[in-house]
């Protein structure tokens, strides 16, 4: 296959030095992620509000049937997409495709890439994302937490490491744009009122232990293991201590991690998640630990949100409720973690030690702007959820029936893009010496000990009455 020269497809991004404010607002992917994410949130929210409350006071989104991902299937993969005479995902998938093509197409065109050269590649990336979703939605695969991020990476890696990624696809490999836009949408799901769902014990287990583990693991990686890449260290530390793939995505974008580093962190996390979701309930049962304590322990330590619920269910309803609620409270932490990591990176990691302290202008230039969109979406939707009449119903309808689906597609497109840009040899070099694995194992061991200690203190000693009520 004859390929055009690489420079024919490269994106035109303004050089770092040429920080012309107006140009950046219109051309940089960080700002486009904010515009796109903000526009999608605004349109979806307006649609719910304009539709008004239905009978019984429930709200719904008119976009629900026009935005979908492939559905669950058992033995016929086609039924994931198309069901004759039944509920088919196809119109919703086409709707998501049109929204993504139009939005991202406008962004890349503003960045200097021809829209026509973006379309072909985007179709293939979207097709591979669909393939990844179909693989992930097989019910056995789904039941063991082997989520779409993994299959999207694999689908991309398969192409790039066999026939090679065709040059015409490259204008559509916009990992940063897809991830950051998805993160702005995810911001709307970070609702601070949920922080108090479990009261003081939940805060202590999820918001006190988690940052301690995150900082200790990062310090251990830098000072003891001497991991060469601080961003790899941070992404592994965050995905292990906070909430798996979603935390890895947010911190990777905040500390500008390499795509291979994000892939590696997710691979390690998913592998250990599968092990922990099977082993932890067995250990809790074998030791005779109470279900509430066991649930809190699993909620604070198993990386992936879905795996926490699955493991909690194995022990019983009360363990499921506590585990999922602790994990939900921990999920909310990713906004704070992403913001703090971005600030820390700009102020300390990227700073030249011999140079004077960077001024406000320099900090602003380096700061990943999409974080502002992520935080703003979180604050606005949290305020609406808590203060608006029918706020919870309106916010839930907006997220669950429209933006959540698009967020999933955008992350899936990002992981396909990462796979298409990654070579196995590049990925393998990060595992050399086994330091990332040692970091994960040591950090997770600390996490298991500290979380168990804190959960025991909170649920068995200080708030034992709450434990009795939860167990009833």
């Amino acid at each position, binding site marked *: 296959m004859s390929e055009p020269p*690489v420079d024919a497809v490269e994106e035109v991004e303004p050089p770092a030095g040429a920080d012309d404010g107006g140009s950046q607002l219109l051309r940089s992917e960080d700002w486009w992620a904010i515009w796109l994410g903000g526009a999608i949130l605004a349109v979806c929210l307006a649609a719910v509000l304009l539709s008004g409350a239905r009978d019984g006071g429930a709200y719904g989104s008119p976009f629900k049937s026009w935005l979908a991902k492939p559905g669950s299937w058992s033995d016929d993969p086609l039924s994931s997409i198309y069901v004759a005479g039944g509920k088919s995902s196809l119109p919703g998938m086409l709707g998501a495709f049109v929204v993504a093509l139009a939005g991202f197409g406008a962004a890349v065109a503003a*960045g200097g890439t021809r829209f026509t050269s973006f379309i072909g590649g985007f179709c293939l990336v979207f097709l591979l994302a669909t393939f990844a979703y179909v693989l992930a939605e097989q019910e056995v*695969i789904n039941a063991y937490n082997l989520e779409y991020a993994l299959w999207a990476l694999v689908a991309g890696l398969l192409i790039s490491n066999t026939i090679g990624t065709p040059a015409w696809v490259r204008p559509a490999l916009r990992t*940063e744009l897809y991830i950051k836009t998805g993160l702005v949408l995810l911001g709307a799901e970070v609702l601070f009122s949920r922080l108090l769902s479990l009261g003081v014990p939940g805060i202590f287990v999820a918001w006190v232990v988690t940052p301690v583990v995150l900082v200790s693991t990062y310090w251990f990686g830098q000072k003891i293991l001497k991991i060469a890449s601080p961003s790899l260290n941070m992404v592994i530390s965050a995905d292990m201590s906070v909430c798996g793939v979603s935390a890895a995505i947010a911190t*990777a974008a905040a500390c500008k991690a390499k*795509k291979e580093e994000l892939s590696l962190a997710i691979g390690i996390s998913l592998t250990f998640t599968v092990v922990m979701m099977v082993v932890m309930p067995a250990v809790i049962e074998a030791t005779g630990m109470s279900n509430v304590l066991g649930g809190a322990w699993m909620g604070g330590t198993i990386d*992936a949100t879905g795996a926490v619920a699955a493991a909690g269910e194995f022990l019983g309803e009360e363990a499921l409720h506590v585990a999922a*609620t602790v994990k939900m409270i921990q999920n909310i932490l990713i906004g704070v973690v992403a913001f703090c990591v971005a600030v820390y990176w700009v102020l300390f990691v990227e700073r030249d030690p011999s140079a004077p302290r960077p001024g406000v202008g320099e900090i602003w230039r380096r700061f990943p702007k999409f974080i502002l969109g992520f935080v703003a979406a979180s604050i606005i939707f949290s305020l609406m959820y808590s203060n608006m009449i029918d706020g919870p119903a309106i916010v839930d309808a907006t997220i669950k029936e429209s933006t959540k689906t698009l967020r999933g597609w955008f992350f899936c497109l990002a992981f396909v893009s990462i796979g298409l840009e990654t070579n196995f040899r590049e990925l393998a070099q990060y595992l050399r010496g086994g330091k990332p694995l040692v970091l994960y194992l040591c950090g997770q061991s600390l996490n298991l000990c500290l979380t168990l200690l804190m959960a025991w203190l909170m649920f068995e000693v200080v708030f034992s*009455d709450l434990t009795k009520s*939860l167990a009833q």
Partner: protein
Amino acid sequence: MSERIDQTVVTEQRGRSGGWPTLAVVLLAVAVIWGVVLPRLGEQPAVRARIERFERQGIEPAALFYSDLPAMSHWEAEVARARAECSEKLGESGAGR
């Protein structure tokens, strides 16, 4: 910056192993695993029971975020009920003293 997530210039892919024949073999393996092996595994009583339990409870084991769990609001309500009960009991025992 060129290798970072926010990279915008895509580098040429290196190192391809096998090309089309390898891709065909892997796709065939995927078809066999997802088309034959996994559906059969899903029919095993233990696996089937697990899948059905998850469906019944509204658990999405591959959820990325809490908002991906269909029954999260229900579980949150159960926890809130237990907290309210606990506060009530503490209030009663405080008033009785």
